[in-house]
């Protein structure tokens, strides 16, 4: 699944959890990486980290709800290897992480990177950086949305491979977009970019390359966004000593439009506005992205959709869940129908994705009159959700049922244990039935083993 199913709603952190511990430890030793990880953490985890670094402990909350939230985030920190639980149960910050974080914090975000700044003397080198950056990114999306000969040639071989490996496209000669590809198109730009970058890192890892070598320059470039950029005026030197994979990373970022290189032999790259997408914490992105939208879509309460755009890409995405009726030079009309939405749902697109897409791309006038949420009429949003719900009349879960308990104690024991482990799906106290989820079966077996060894003589 892309984006939406992310465990901690941050793709970067999710990815970090999956890489081997020894490589992750090497990342924690790099000041830039340590600093960037801190940036991407959710607010409570940031607090915990800071308190642990400076005080060596953090205060307990009185509220049960808040305590649970803190525990969740501490778990995240443990998984990241930033925090370790010692044998006495106390939490301690990782030494490497502490050192590199302090180092980075003293220097400031922009100065940690070793990239060399250069003022651009030649106008020619950085001409129309912004415009070209956006064009590049559109090319990639267009390739996914409208597979055709022309669009295929506009993206590089590596990107094509990447999408294939990420299971966004399928088929060899004639490319077809898959469910996850569709979902990718509906994501916000921040999520799209991160998904792309993460898929790229996964690809590198699967080829056995050293991941830290690639992540470090990536993070350094992203952190440069902090320094602010003067488009067309400032650029950074490309270090000729960079290794093959690192150069390859630059190529990818260039393809994404995050950095701009006019010609390789210039030896410099420019930062573009798209870089801010990678520098934002995506957890807070969703609402802020809507505010700055320059969308072109009007949805009426009668389910008519007007798209004031000539962009084939936008139209293709809208056509995923709309029945297009008229197409004019700069405006297209469509209807959101039960059939069209069901078609999209069958492709694996969710109602929430359609709704958030329509909201994010609402025409500024709709937002001005009805606000960022109601710019999509409530009736339409509700109906789309209802169409989804009617496909989901039943909820199926693989599970195990336990029956014929010998005693109340046995039943209560299993029941409480399952509750504690959060594996309990359903229980009936009268008939003594317990249902646990799929992975729960193993736990319950362990419980029985424990009971046996504990009271081996009590006759069970």
């Amino acid at each position, binding site marked *: 699944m892309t984006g939406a199913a992310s465990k901690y709603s941050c793709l970067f952190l999710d990815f970090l959890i999956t890489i081997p511990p020894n490589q992750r430890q090497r990342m924690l030793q790099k000041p830039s990486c340590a600093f960037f990880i801190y940036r991407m953490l959710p607010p409570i985890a940031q607090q915990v980290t800071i308190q642990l670094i400076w005080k060596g402990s953090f205060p307990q909350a009185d509220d049960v709800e808040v305590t649970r939230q803190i525990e969740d985030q501490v778990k995240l920190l443990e998984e990241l290897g930033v925090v370790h639980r010692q044998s006495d149960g106390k939490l301690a910050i990782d030494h490497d992480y502490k050192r590199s974080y302090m180092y980075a914090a003293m220097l400031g975000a922009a100065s940690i990177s070793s990239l060399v700044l250069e003022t651009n003397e030649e106008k020619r080198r950085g001409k129309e950086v912004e415009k070209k950056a956006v064009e590049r990114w559109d090319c990639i999306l267009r390739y996914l949305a409208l597979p055709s000969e022309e669009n295929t040639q506009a993206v590089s071989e590596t990107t094509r491979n990447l999408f294939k490996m990420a299971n966004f496209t399928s088929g060899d000669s004639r490319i077809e977009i898959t469910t996850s590809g569709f979902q990718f198109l509906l994501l916000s730009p921040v999520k799209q970019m991160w998904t792309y970058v993460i898929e790229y890192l996964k690809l590198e890892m699967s080829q056995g390359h050293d991941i830290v070598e690639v992540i470090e320059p990536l993070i350094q470039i992203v952190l440069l966004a902090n320094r602010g950029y003067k488009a067309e005026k400032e650029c950074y030197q490309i270090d000729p000593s960079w290794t093959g994979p690192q150069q390859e990373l630059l190529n990818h970022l260039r393809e994404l439009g995050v950095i701009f290189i006019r010609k390789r032999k210039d030896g410099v790259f420019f930062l573009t506005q798209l870089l801010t997408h990678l520098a934002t914490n995506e957890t807070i992105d969703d609402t802020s992205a809507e505010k700055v939208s320059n969308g072109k879509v009007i949805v009426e309460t009668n389910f008519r959709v007007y798209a004031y755009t000539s962009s084939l890409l936008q139209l293709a995405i809208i056509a995923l869940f709309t029945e297009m009726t008229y197409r004019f030079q700069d405006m297209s009309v469509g209807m959101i129908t*039960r*059939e069209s939405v069901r078609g999209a749902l069958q492709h694996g697109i969710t109602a929430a994705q359609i709704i958030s897409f329509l909201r994010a791309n609402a025409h500024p006038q709709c937002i001005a009159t009805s606000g960022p949420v109601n710019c999509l009429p409530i009736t339409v949003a509700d109906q789309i959700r209802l169409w989804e719900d*009617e*496909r989901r*009349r*039943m*909820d*199926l*879960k*693989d*599970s*195990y*049922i*336990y*029956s*014929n*308990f*010998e005693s109340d104690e*046995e039943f209560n024991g299993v029941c409480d244990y399952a509750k504690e482990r959060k594996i309990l*799906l*359903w229980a*009936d106290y009268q008939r003594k*039935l317990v*249902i646990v989820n799929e992975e729960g*079966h193993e736990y319950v077996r362990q419980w029985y083993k424990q009971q046996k060894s504990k009271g081996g003589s009590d006759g069970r």
Partner: protein
Amino acid sequence: MVNVKKGVLVTSDPAFRQLLIHLDDSRQLGSKFIIRELDDTHLFIEKEIVPMLESKVEQIMENMNPETNDNK
């Protein structure tokens, strides 16, 4: 001795549960598939039947939708 059985827990609204029980009683899917009727909103069924059940349900729901019938 305690009994364990693998299967699928179905959560649905009572009306839909009734439909499933009807499908089970009338053996429209070739055999019985409900292992246990739990409560108003839960059933425990065989895992093997799920794909068949899903397509059958889809078909039934489609037939009940007036809009699609109009188009035919």
